[in-house]
């Protein structure tokens, strides 16, 4: 699926998906990212404190932090407002 999303939309998708711990492969598959860009997005969210990484031997899992909830709710509000405040299309 070739879709165009903004980085903020991708951050939101990752954070919502990582409400429960997820592996790197699961995240990039679900969010339709390649491993290079997926790694960049995860590292960025990790550096900002929105994601935390847990290592269990060879395996790593990623989970959204409490701080992420703030971003998720703000993003959700902004995007839903696009339908609430702008008159929609009707035939």
């Amino acid at each position, binding site marked *: 699926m*070739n*879709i*165009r*999303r*903004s*980085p*903020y*939309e991708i*951050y*939101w*998708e990752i954070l*919502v998906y990582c409400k429960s711990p997820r592996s790197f492969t699961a995240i990039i598959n679900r969010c339709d990212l390649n491993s290079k860009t997926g790694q960049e997005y995860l590292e*960025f969210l990790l550096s*900002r404190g929105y994601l935390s990484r847990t290592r269990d031997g060879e395996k790593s899992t990623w989970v959204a932090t409490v701080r992420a909830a*703030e*971003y*998720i709710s*703000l*993003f*959700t509000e*902004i*995007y*839903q*407002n*696009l*339908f*609430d*405040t*702008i*008159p*929609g*299309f*009707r*035939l």
Partner: protein
Amino acid sequence: MTEETFRRFRNELNSFFVLVLLNTAFGALTMAFGMQFIVTSVLGLPGGQTGIVFRLLTGILSLVCFGIGFAWVLASARILRGVTAVRRDYKKCTEPVSGEILTGWIVRIMAHYRKNRETIQWMTLICTLGGCVFLALGILNLVQGIFALSPSGSAWIRILPFVAAAINLTIGLTSLRFSTWFRKYSAVWDHRMEEASRSEDALKKSLGIDRE
């Protein structure tokens, strides 16, 4: 708030789905009529009352109609694919839609619009062009019909150009209406895109998210 937003989102998506579906049907009709009129123009109407210039002119216009119809169907199918995927998801959803699920659909439709913005604009142009060509074809049919109004020949042969004119004028006017609907849809989504990018700036600033 989510329920109300979902209702708006669903109504809008359904409206757009119907528009694209009807548009696909009209594209197919354009192709079919284009082909049919090519045959009737090249072979001439039974009895051959009309001149070669008219037949040649309607033949060329019919060929243009066929080409436009083909491009029309292809573009509609491309747009329909993304809309159908989201519609399928919300039809499957039996529980009340959560804010996150709804936002996910909004993000997908937004990405779909970004990806297909040019196609939708192209569709507006095709509908306008198609509408004009069909209107021209309809007017030519009317002229053909008026010139073919001789007392000789059966009533059916005299009526035939008027029937063709009615079909062409109807398709032409509907296509022009479709183009205004596509323009309206584009305007709504362009407005949303502007709002979203303004809001994303606010999001970036308030949460300190700034990807270098």
